[in-house]
């Protein structure tokens, strides 16, 4: 009897630890994207996480796990398009982000995604991130990407177990503002279509929430030059 309880405890503990790692990666992701995140939130310890989000059985309670964050000034600047004739005073194309952990452990389909879309739409969030334990069905993916005027992303918990951008082989990706992008194109006398490309479905692009048409600067270490910068056009 005792052994069973211990085993049970071990299982809940494992799930709690895994979810805590995901939780931390989500906060790091928000910080890397440029949202306002406090240091305490970034460095939440496992014990604090357990106290806050565990149910009486010791399992994580995902219904409580919801995050909202506002963009910083720097991020707003990066997401403001250049003023043009028809739009002399452009507004930044970013806003409050909302992260939701789906509590259902299997069979996530259109029902859950519709509920999520509804929350995002009703509370007027600019971006929504939907995190599930299992893959979602193809029609749910289509439904998620079909919200007009809003950006909805999807991650699996296991995708965010480790932060891929902290790996030593992943170079640093820096998003360029429209102004910097213009300068780059002018300096090298390029059209944007002449830049090397990167897919929106690229893991780092997904992590940073990049959109089609943006340009990132990739900084690598180089044995001969010290640092080497290259650029990618996100398509």
């Amino acid at each position, binding site marked *: 009897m005792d052994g069973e309880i211990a085993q049970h405890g071990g299982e809940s503990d494992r799930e709690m630890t895994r979810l805590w790692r995901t939780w931390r990666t989500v906060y790091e992701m928000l910080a890397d994207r440029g949202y306002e995140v406090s240091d305490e939130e970034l460095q939440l310890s496992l014990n604090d996480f357990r106290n806050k989000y565990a149910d009486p059985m010791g399992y994580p309670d995902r219904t409580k796990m919801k995050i909202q964050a506002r963009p910083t000034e720097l991020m707003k600047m990066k997401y403001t398009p250049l003023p043009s004739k028809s739009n002399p005073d452009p507004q930044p194309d970013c806003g409050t982000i909302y992260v939701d952990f789906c509590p259902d452990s299997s*069979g*996530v389909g259109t029902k859950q995604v519709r509920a999520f879309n509804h929350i995002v739409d009703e509370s007027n969030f600019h971006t929504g991130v939907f995190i599930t334990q299992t893959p979602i*069905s193809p029609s749910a993916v289509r439904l998620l990407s079909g919200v007009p005027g809003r950006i909805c992303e999807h991650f699996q918990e296991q995708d965010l177990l480790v932060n891929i951008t902290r790996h030593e082989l992943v170079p640093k990706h820096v998003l360029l503002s429209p102004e910097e992008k213009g300068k780059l194109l002018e300096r090298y006398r390029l059209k944007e279509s002449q830049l090397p490309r990167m897919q929106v479905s690229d893991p780092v692009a997904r992590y940073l929430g990049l959109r089609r048409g943006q340009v990132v600067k990739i900084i690598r270490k180089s044995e001969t030059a010290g640092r080497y910068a290259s650029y990618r056009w996100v398509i």
Partner: protein
Amino acid sequence: MPAQASSKHALKTSLQTAYAAASAEQPSSLPTREEQDKYLEGRPRATTHHLGIALQHAHQIQAQKDAEEMILDRIIELLALPSSPSADPATPSPQDAQLFKSALYPFRPSDYDSLVEERNNEDLCGYGLCPRKNRKDHYGQGQSFRFKYGAKGTGPGGRGRSVDIVPSDNIEKWCSDQCAERALYIRVQLGERPVWERRANDTHAKNIQLLEEGRAKSQKSKVESSKAALRTPQLDGGGDMMAGMRNLNIQDNERSEELALERGDTGRIHRHGRVGVHVKENELSEHSSASAPQPRPEDALGGSIEGYVPQDRRDKESTANQADLLDQI
């Protein structure tokens, strides 16, 4: 935008024909002068012809997007079937059956699979007209295959039972083997070709039959065909082709409109088909006998090779000409 709304609405009823009708509603397929100028401004060598082509492609892409959205809507609609929780999948109510069949028309097999997956997510049998739950056996983890036993006498040599090893996912999609058969019977009738590429006469997926209907029909037709075979001797169809060839008419306005509709491009082409067809037969003259070649004076030295005169022979000719000139002087 009322025009767009109406076309969208029309698209939900029946595809190609409605799309063609919707685009025919706007006789001037080119946009207003201002929009044309705006398009041509940034493109120095573009003409309105390019604009037309760009628009045509844009319309195609839009039709594709609309169709995908419609399929998604229909998947969500079909999750609510059947309308009563006590419905029998073998004898569905006529309204449900009609709704189910008409909704499936634009589906591809892959869309149908995602419908099944969605229904399973809602704890329903994958067959759209079955109100029961899908079966779920809990054998624990790692049990991803099941034994499936056939009826008595199906085994090797007609003895015992046949045994199949089946992935458990395939079994857990349905409530029973009967429902699995019904659902797969529908699946094989769906067209592989996406709906925005289908032609108006593509009857492949138009007349979807439920398994029960298909069975009833095949029995009936079997009886009828056996009767017919008894009554009438076979007719020879050899003479039909000549008659058909005689009736062949290349430029038939009605038919060409039909053809344009089939292609789904009635929008911006001529009333009478894409181009005018003029058949011009080669004339055979009465006295067409070729005469034998006659030797000409310039052929004395062998002539030219397809217009080319070799160097040495050319030199000879020119000296000969000069000699002639001197004689004249």
